[in-house]
């Protein structure tokens, strides 16, 4: 079965507010795609529309060659994992996992076998008889994951599944999720507002804003060569500097000149320099800027540097460099080539 997802001109109105403004999105079978955006950008509504829990106002959703918008969620065979875990609080762990199989009228011995296998897969086999409230948040979310994959779904949907967990658990579950998805090869759509999560998990990230898709790409492409300022600022930290481009070269505020990777861009908003690409060196002589503030973060030290009245951010890594004092004069080194950012224009037809 072809488990690719195709979304065509999807519109969703809540009263007079248009939360999805005619989205088009294709997701190839077996891919792990993350929908990333600030709260209220429509990513959860999009996911719920794919699940069938939310009815789109218009547009089409296709699973392979089958149109599924209008198909009841219980007929779609999609596994979904929720932010609040959404386990059945009155059922034991194994009953929770068995629920989907019971709905499919799987034979009893097969249910027992598949439930045990799914619980072993998420490392919770020994907790089968417990109730959800007797498990930690991370364990509960593992049960929810087992419950979603045991039905052998066409597509796996994740609605901010790690948001309710503390940082350590989040990291370990994130790794497990990635490993599991790669092992099973199920088409997955994952909603998050956490850019680190999106980059760590996804084959591909779809950046959303105000009910529209800003751009999509692999984590590396979107992080290193984002087309839009919105993407650059949402994915990690970035310095956006006013750009003056002449003959394919850009002069930076402190005088350095660098070639531009994409000089023909229109609607340019500035150039992007990631803090980790902007290195500093203390100097007693002629300086490009002065350190305003620093923050020691363990693996890295963050600096705020005043350059010609503006503040730029720089990240220094490595354990052997001393933390520089505030007021220290520094020389700046920009990356060998620069990348121009466009401003994101909402589509003209969009109502807000």
């Amino acid at each position, binding site marked *: 079965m072809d488990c690719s997802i195709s979304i065509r001109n999807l519109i969703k109105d809540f009263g007079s507010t248009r939360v999805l403004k005619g989205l088009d999105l294709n997701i190839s079978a077996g891919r792990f795609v993350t929908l990333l955006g600030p709260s209220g950008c429509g990513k959860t509504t999009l996911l719920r529309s794919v699940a*069938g*829990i939310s009815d789109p106002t218009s547009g089409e959703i296709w699973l392979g060659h089958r149109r599924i918008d209008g198909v009841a969620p*219980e007929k779609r*065979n999609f596994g979904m994992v929720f*932010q609040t875990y*959404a386990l*059945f609080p009155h059922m034991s762990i194994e009953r929770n996992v068995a*629920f989907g199989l019971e709905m499919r009228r799987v034979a009893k011995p097969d249910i027992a076998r598949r439930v045990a296998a799914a619980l072993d897969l998420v490392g919770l086999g020994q907790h089968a008889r417990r*109730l959800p409230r007797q498990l930690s948040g991370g364990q509960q979310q593992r049960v929810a994951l087992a*419950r979603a994959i045991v039905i052998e779904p066409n597509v796996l949907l994740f609605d901010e599944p790690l948001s309710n967990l503390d940082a350590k658990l989040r990291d370990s579950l994130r790794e497990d999720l990635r490993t599991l998805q790669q092992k099973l090869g199920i088409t997955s759509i994952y909603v998050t507002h956490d850019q680190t999560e999106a980059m760590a998990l996804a084959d591909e990230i779809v950046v959303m804003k105000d009910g529209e898709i800003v751009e999509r790409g692999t984590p590396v492409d979107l992080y290193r060569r984002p087309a839009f300022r919105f993407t650059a600022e949402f994915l990690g930290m970035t310095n956006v500097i006013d750009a003056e481009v002449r003959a394919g070269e850009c002069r930076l505020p402190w005088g350095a000149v660098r070639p531009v990777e994409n000089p023909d861009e229109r609607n340019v908003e500035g150039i992007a320099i990631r803090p980790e690409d902007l290195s500093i060196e203390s100097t007693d002589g002629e300086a490009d800027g002065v350190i305003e503030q620093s923050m020691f973060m363990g693996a890295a030290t963050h600096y705020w540097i005043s350059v010609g009245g503006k503040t730029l951010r720089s990240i220094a890594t490595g354990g052997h460099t001393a933390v520089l004092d505030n007021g220290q004069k520094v020389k700046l080194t920009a990356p060998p080539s620069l990348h121009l950012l466009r401003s994101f224009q909402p589509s003209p037809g969009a109502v807000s």
Partner: protein
Amino acid sequence: MNEATRVRTPVLLLCLLPGVGYLTVFFGVPLVRVLVGSFSSNKPGESFPTLDTWATLFATPVYLDGLWFSIWLGLAPTVLSLLVSLPLSALMLANERSRKLFGALYRVPLVVPGIVAGFLVLVILDRGGMAARLAAPLGLTLPRLVRDEWGLGAIIASSWKSIPFMTLIISGAMASINKEVLSAARTLGAGRVTIFWRVQMPLAKPGITAAVLLSFIGSLGSFVIPSLLGPAYPLPLSVSMYREGFQNGNWPMVYAMGTLLSVVAIGILLVYYAIVGSTGRSQPLSKRDS
């Protein structure tokens, strides 16, 4: 006992006084008075602890029929109301439109006093009443619904009163269920009916129990509705209590009937808890390693 507890005990008792004291004075004392009173006798010259009244109560067919009728008038409206309130509560959650429609409608009986409800049913269902007149041109004759031997009129009126209470409590309990749990059930392949039975009902169980308890106790002790709409025979114990007290002056009998009614109520609720408490509990998938 150490120093700290010795100092704190009187303070603790003082703190408990408003709650415990209130219960003792306004609940405990009258209840004991009723219980003690049932062991006295109405006949002059009898010594105090006597089983005379209880013996009479259990030897009089009128009273025993009354006891069964009381239980019937308590149970039937509760079951009927539950059958209406459960789906109504689930429906109100299903979508916004039905919530608005039923949300306003079901509250109407809440503000109508029992006696008014009784007269409403009387006006509509009595012989020659509105329902009969509407049915007559169609050639239909309605069964006797008021003052009938099954107490159907009283059951209808009691249900009419308790459906809103039940719906209020049960829909509240159902509304507090995490919406994502219901969504999860749907993505796993459960339709609305399955979700109602397997998820909403078990999770709303505490609310359903509270609603059943309130409705049952209310209908069991109801006086207004059976005296207005019930048959001349049998009379439920609530009505007999009134007659024994105010017409015959037989107060020990009133006390005995009151005690019996309370004991029966407690007994039936214990049975209810025994049945409901054991359902919905997770059964293991297989017998292995259990």
